[in-house]
């Protein structure tokens, strides 16, 4: 009875399944394959057979081949990976905690609640590149940030013009935190909104201090949403790319040889695009697989931790 009309369901699903296979499944498999091919030619598909060398090269294990230093393959292990980890592990925890605090406070106020909610959600509908450019202006040497804090003529975002890696990272993390907030606040707010008023009433009857209600009752009740947000934020953090373009793109036009602000995804794009006409899809593929493995490991760890602490 249940199986009789199965083919119909498959038929209806066919268009989307074909697209998913063509543009998601196949590229994933292909990426795995390419990452193991030596000197892969993106146009003809020609290669020199199976190798682990691509991984060895981008991770700095295998010695560099003399004469191909312009591929800058070492930038992966030297800049892209450390930067990505730094961005993720600094900005994600701060952003999640900040979003939680804001959501809980937002949930408590009655007056102007809707207005504040809109304000907090506005960044979500703004183009990230545009936000990045605004940030770049705010943090330029004559920008708002210097003016507000009276810091004088500090250049924060233009590496070629006096900024340093540290300053750029500071602005970058700030940017990632800020742009990440609205979606998190939206999810947390709706989760908080769905908590049964009876839990608050029960806590009140039991003379629970407000902070204790938030910490011991409210947080555990929205723990599934916290887990969801944490995992997706980590994944987004690992994939950070837009921010670099929006914030620092100009510095590359001034000094195209400085790559210390690379992230993993930026590195991958650069390898695909190629420098000086040489494209290295095999390095890009290897970088993508490394990123995949990192994300997988962290997600599994989070799921494991969640088993004990998340209450559905």
């Amino acid at each position, binding site marked *: 009875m249940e199986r009789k009309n199965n083919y119909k369901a498959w038929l209806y699903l066919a268009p989307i399944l074909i697209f998913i296979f063509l543009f998601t499944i196949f590229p994933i498999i292909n990426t795995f394959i390419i990452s193991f091919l030596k000197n892969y030619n993106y146009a003809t598909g020609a290669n020199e057979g199976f190798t682990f060398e691509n991984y060895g090269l981008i991770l700095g294990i295998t010695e560099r081949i003399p004469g191909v230093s312009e591929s800058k393959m070492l930038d992966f292990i030297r800049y892209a990976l450390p930067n990505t980890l730094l961005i993720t592990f600094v900005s994600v925890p701060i952003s999640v905690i900040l979003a939680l605090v804001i959501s809980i406070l937002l949930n408590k106020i009655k007056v102007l609640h809707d207005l504040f909610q809109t304000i907090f959600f506005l960044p979500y509908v703004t183009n990230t590149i545009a936000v990045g450019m605004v940030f770049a202006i705010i943090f330029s040497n004559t920008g708002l940030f210097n003016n507000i804090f009276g810091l004088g003529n500090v250049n924060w975002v233009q590496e070629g013009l006096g900024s340093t890696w540290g300053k750029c990272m500071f602005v970058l993390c700030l940017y990632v935190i800020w742009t990440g907030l609205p979606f998190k606040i939206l999810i947390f707010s709706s989760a908080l909104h769905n908590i049964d008023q*009876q839990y608050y*009433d*029960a806590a*009140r*009857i*039991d*003379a629970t201090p407000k902070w204790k209600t938030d910490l*011991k009752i409210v947080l555990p*009740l929205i*723990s599934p949403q916290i887990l969801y947000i944490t995992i997706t934020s980590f994944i987004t953090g690992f994939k950070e790319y837009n921010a670099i373009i929006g914030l620092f793109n100009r510095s590359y036009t001034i000094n195209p040889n400085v790559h210390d602000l690379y992230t993993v995804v930026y590195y991958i794009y650069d390898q695909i695009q190629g420098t000086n006409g040489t494209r290295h899809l095999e390095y890009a593929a290897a970088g993508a697989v490394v990123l995949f493995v990192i994300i997988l490991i962290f997600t599994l760890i989070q799921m494991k931790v969640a088993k004990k602490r998340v209450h559905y």
Partner: protein
Amino acid sequence: MEIKLVALTKKYPGDVKKGIKDTVAVDNLSIDIKDGELLGLLGPSGCGKSTTLYMIAGLKDPTSGEIYFDDEDVTDLEAEKRGIGLVFQNYALYPHMTVYKNIAFPLTNLRVSAPKKAYKALSYKLILDVISDRERLKKATLKSEIDGKITKDNAALYIAYEYSISKYLAKKIFSLGLHDDNNKDKVDEYKTYFEKKLQEEKEKINSKQKKIDDNFVYLDENNNPLIVKRKLTKDEIDRLILDVARLVQIDEYLDRKPAELSGGQQQRVAIARALVKKPRVLLLDEPLSNLDARLRIKTREEIKRIQRETNITTIFVTHDQEEAMSICDDIVVMKDGKMMQFGAPQDVYKNPSDLFVAKFLGNPPINVFKGYIKDDAVFIGDEKIMHLDHKENYRDCYVGIRPEAFIFEHDKEYHLTLNIDSIQSTGKDTSLICSHPQFVGDQLKVVIDSDSNPVLGKKDFALKYSKVYLFDMKDEKRIEL
């Protein structure tokens, strides 16, 4: 504790612009609730009974009127300071905490004025008491055996109950292994050890220039117990939880999460959580509505038992008249925020003050007919159904006849003829579904003795006058003749 409601009113303001009128949820309600009483607030949904309960709890503010706990005016007192226990309709158990932690939660917030004790010395003393009688300890421990195995947690629970000590201390004692016959000789060894420890502890206290009495309570300069404002200790909390868990019979489930319990068990946990802090008043909001029929009857007996044992003033909100009738000392019947009648359930049932109360109480419900009073008799249609002692002026009225008021006998002069449409036998008695042209309502039901042998068709019934009520056509108030 007595509770007094004086002209309590709750209005929800409407919106003049949108033409929404004010909603009066509770209207000028005055009730005196006696100490240790189980009071039922009874009424159809939307009658304001839950609102009344929440105002007593302090979760809703009354628009006007006052609430007194004994002589204390608590109208403006915050909920957390009223010292009440509230059982919510959906229990509102914290899903992420075990049953134990759920019950412990209110206690962790509590600050009590209590004597300061020398806890360490006290615990040595308790251990000494327990191990002095090895046989008793062995017996208590062996009782915890399940499938020939003794686990630490389970044994500790049994020891804790046997000696009224905390589970933590019981675990410590269990770890000594004295229940095992192989360790028989070690009793004296342990005794000397703990006696020495106790002595050391006492000397330590003495060396600090402090005094304690025989119960290890610190004394002040005048040798009075030293009372301090403090939080409950872990051991005290544990003791209270074990006691209340036993009272509501959930001691086996303390380590489970609420989701792993049945509805009835969750209900008990909710009651335990409300009772554990020894509230001055216990409020129950439709506590049985989420249970199935059988469990409902069992649980309501349970509530009554717990209420009797604790003798705590209890207010119970329900829309189920049977529930209220069966366990409450007094009931308040409410309609549209107003109190319709107050009294003992049987009195209210026997003497309803108006048609609404008469209709609301009783299962199956009362049968209402359109009738009239003429001379010295009550008529329905052309039939005289009841004799009156004196002559009355003609007036139309509603006649309410309880299903059990019909007598399966023929009476020449005063009777009511019904058409019997169907017969249902429940074994104990027989219900007849009947019809009559003057009947108002859904179903005319007559309950008679199962010995009678009714047949379908027309039949005239004599009536028990005490179960026939007359109500005014206009204001539906009872007509007393």
